């Protein structure tokens, strides 16, 4: 090997600092998604400072005003400011999405790892998961909500229970393929304890697919919360959430379309943003899958 080619090699091997412009050019959709998502988060956090009024303030004289300079998104049948309600509604959707994503990946990780490493437990757990998975997620969440009173915590728990089986299956699949790998066999042969194998060798390898899955769960949880609230089985009506606002606008949608359109638009944009981030993460973390999908 000549000196020149070695120089070439070192030139390639050293990672050049990546400029912001490079990132934007290579993944325009991811950047768009993250920007949109950050904007939604900022809106949720800064809700009181964005020209909003009390989202629950009734004003019967000003009912059903169409969008105008004073009421950007109009007012609903009780005279409440739809703009303020939509801005505050972002808090509910993002809280539910994030909480469900974290909780269900954490629980699914534990269940999947236990199932992947113990055959008798696997047989029982996976039958339970198969059963839960054959109940469509929204129906499962509806059924659980019918048992308890409407509150945001209960919505989070109900959606989490509906999402856990999928994560468990994913983690179990990864664990089953990893435990046959030479490096796990080697660790076992040298007498490493099971929990140490799980923590050192299995866990790090499940993280990439788990993060991607977590993003998609966040998107689907945001939709499920909106569906539950829309059907009257989710967030209590005294809290403005996008699903609730749309549910209240339902009977009036022929005269006051804006009550439904604005929350629906924000809901879709948020889910779109989360999905774009998820697609981007998948492409980055799993190049094999990226080419296929």
């Amino acid at each position, binding site marked *: 090997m000549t000196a020149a080619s070695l120089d070439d090699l070192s030139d390639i091997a050293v990672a050049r600092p990546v400029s912001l412009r490079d990132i934007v050019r290579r993944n325009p959709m991811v950047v768009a998604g993250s920007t949109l998502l950050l904007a939604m988060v900022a809106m949720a956090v800064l809700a009181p400072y964005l020209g909003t009024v009390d989202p629950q303030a009734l004003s019967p004289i000003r009912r059903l005003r169409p969008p105008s300079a004073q009421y950007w998104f109009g007012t609903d049948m009780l005279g409440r400011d739809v703009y303020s309600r939509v801005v505050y509604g972002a808090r509910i959707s993002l809280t539910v999405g994030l909480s469900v994503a974290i909780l269900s990946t954490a629980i699914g990780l534990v269940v999947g790892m236990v199932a992947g490493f113990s055959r008798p437990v696997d047989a029982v757990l996976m039958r339970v998961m198969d059963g839960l998975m054959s*109940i*469509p997620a929204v129906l499962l969440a*509806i059924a659980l909500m019918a048992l308890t009173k409407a509150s945001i915590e209960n919505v989070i728990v109900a959606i989490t229970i509906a999402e856990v089986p999928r994560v468990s299956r994913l983690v179990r699949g990864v664990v089953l393929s990893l435990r046959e790998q030479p490096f796990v066999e080697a660790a076992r042969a040298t007498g490493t304890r099971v929990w140490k194998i799980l923590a050192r060798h299995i866990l790090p390898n499940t993280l990439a697919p788990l993060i991607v899955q977590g993003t998609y769960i966040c998107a689907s949880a945001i939709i499920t919360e909106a569906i539950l609230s829309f059907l*009257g089985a989710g967030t209590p009506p005294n809290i403005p959430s996008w699903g609730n606002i749309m549910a209240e606008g339902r009977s009036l949608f022929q005269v006051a379309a804006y009550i439904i359109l604005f929350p*629906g638009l924000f809901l879709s944009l948020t889910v779109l943003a989360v999905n774009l981030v998820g697609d981007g993460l998948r492409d980055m973390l799993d190049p094999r899958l990226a080419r296929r999908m």
Partner: protein
Amino acid sequence: MFAYLLRRLLATIPVMLVVALFVFSLLYLSPGDPAVVIGGDTATAEDIARIREKLGLDQPFTVQFGTWLWNVVRGDLGISIFTNLPVSRLILQRIEPTLALTVCTMVLTIVVAVPMGVLAAWKVGTWIDRLVMAFAVLGFSFPVFVTGYLLIFGLSIWADLLPVQGYVSISNGLWAFLPNMVLPSLALGMVYTALIARITRASMLEVLSQDYIRTAHSKGLSSGKVLLGHALKNASVPIVTTIGIGLALLISGVVVTESVFAIPGLGRLTVDAILRRDYPIIQGVILVFSAAYVMVNLLIDVCYTFLDPRIRY
């Protein structure tokens, strides 16, 4: 083949048992004592005890579950708390619109999504491909009720092409029935179309890179023949699997779509039951939907042998 069928059929039993256990626990854990409700305000403690005994509510959990399961197997899903009618009859009354909507949506979706995916894979990297992929991402992101209202505003209220809401039974003739089905099927099919178009494209891309496709091309077959005869046929197994799994999405969507479009089907029955906390109805609907989901996926597993002769059982 027969042995496989039997084994596959037996494998659905534990799954349905878990569903049944979950559904039963729902009523068992539900707040409020049915005996107190039935007894009314004037019931004494002895009356309530007698009703509990008559309903078998004093029995242990396993006995109650066994009795309930036996009734379900015989088609008795209990009595609705609110209307006092048998749940199985209520479900039968409402099943037609839901079945019609689901079948219309599935047909529409498959007719649209599979060609979309094939086209995107064939023209991979071009603007057609990008358009299909963009649609797939958007389809995943727009919740069914948002799509539904957008379609109503656009095609019914603004363009005045189709009815806004409602349902006309198929027994009134196909031309009376179809207009009411267009918008709900489009709205409900959006996510499903996105999913199937995406998996069709992925599966086709995988197959199109195979040697036998190049051989087929080089021996002078037309692109159409290669795409449909060689590629799509071999790419069909993942597509059909996704059609089956996606049915869960479709069922979840049905509940919402029926509310948006005022279709008197099982979804509306469920929503009304939630608002009234009518647990036997919620139980019955979940059982029916889950059983349908499990059965369709069982059928699809059996179909594999026809799609791919290499799969032997």
